[in-house]
């Protein structure tokens, strides 16, 4: 090719055309994804989705609970620094988050397409009804979930992901001995933010590499939905 200037010029021209086309069309890739398309990547629901309906019915109840949690959180944060919750809990939650949410291809055992099977299985293994909150409203779609070993009790793990491929995990378990309810509390473990709370004898940990306010607002959504779920499915 070095000896054929015409060919070399042609190749250079093709390369320049390729580069121009990529420069022209690559920026489209950086545009924000519409919610409806992100939602369409999830497995289509079999039959009607019942979730929004009961959420609507219990929205008022959930909202009042969220307000309660919000007030409680601001008022009680300082006094609840250490009681009730083993300090290792948040560390373990962050560890589990890093281990599974960091696994790009296999973060979960059962994918969101089989959400019903996932929830049934986890409920059976944990010994009480669990529920994967719908976080599409805040931009996170359920990826799936798995069972993980807790300190003494098995833990249910749900993994969520947003359009930027950021992942959130929600961990749910029942401590071996009943513990007092707490309001939202926050810990930062090795760069992973963890919001955790105890409610109805269950401990919850919401973990992610998000900033604290964003994580808190998602935590409130989770809390509201779980509260509504519990109201509909008393243990």
């Amino acid at each position, binding site marked *: 090719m070095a000896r054929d200037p015409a060919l070399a010029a042609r190749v*250079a021209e093709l390369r320049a055309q390729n580069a121009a086309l990529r420069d*022209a069309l690559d920026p489209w890739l*950086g*545009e924000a*994804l*519409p919610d*409806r398309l992100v939602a369409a*990547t999830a497995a289509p629901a079999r039959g009607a989705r019942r979730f929004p309906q009961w959420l609507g019915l219990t929205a008022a109840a959930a909202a009042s609970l969220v307000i309660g949690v919000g007030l409680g959180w601001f008022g009680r944060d300082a006094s609840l620094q250490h009681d009730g919750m083993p300090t290792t809990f948040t560390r373990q939650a962050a560890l589990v988050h890093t281990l599974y949410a960091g696994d*790009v291809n296999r973060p979960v055992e059962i994918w969101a397409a089989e959400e019903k099977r996932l929830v049934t299985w986890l409920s059976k293994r944990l010994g009480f009804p669990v529920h994967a909150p719908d976080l599409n409203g805040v931009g996170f779609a359920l990826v799936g979930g798995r069972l993980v070993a807790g300190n003494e009790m098995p833990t249910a793990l749900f993994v969520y992901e947003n359009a930027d491929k950021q992942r959130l995990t929600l961990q749910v378990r029942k401590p071996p001995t009943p513990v007092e309810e707490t309001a939202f509390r926050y810990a930062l473990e090795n760069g992973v933010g963890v919001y955790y709370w105890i409610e109805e004898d269950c401990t919850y940990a919401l973990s992610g590499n998000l900033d604290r306010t964003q994580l808190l607002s998602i935590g409130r959504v989770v809390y509201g939905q779980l509260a509504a779920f519990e109201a509909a499915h008393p243990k």
Partner: protein
Amino acid sequence: MTASPPADPPLPQPDLIAALPRLRRYARVLTGDAARADDLVQEALARAWEKRRLWAAGSDLRAWLFTIMHNVFVNQRVLARHERQHVSLDAEGDGQEAWQLPVRAMQYTRVELMELVQHVGRLPVEQREVLLLAVVEELRYEEIAAVLNIPVGTVMSRLSRAREKLRAAFAVPSSSSLKVVK
């Protein structure tokens, strides 16, 4: 509990989400219209879930999704032609706004790139999709042939015709001037 028969394995949703920007871009090149492009992507995703047993896990999900979307597009176009005669989706002036350039431009001036995008938009859809898949998505000719269900020779001839038209219409700056433009 009775064990239900195993369902088709789900598609990996993270990979679907990762493929979304490229699907949207391909759809926009096909339809020439941003809103219709997203409709097409949505339809293609629904079809992908229906047909998920046809996807061999571990194989290139992006190419498979391109195939599905291409088929959905072709089917829609056949229907549209039945409904409205004399309407060519290849026509220039169809959905102009999709051919507007996004904000960022690098080696070329914004005006130059905008012209190029306009020229791409005026190519027949068969040529612009081959151009996108070959040059921008960098699929091999065999892969493009599989996606579009056409012979490899047709891929190559469409690509070279697209390139010639762009070359005639849009003088790509010579490589020596590339760095100068700001």
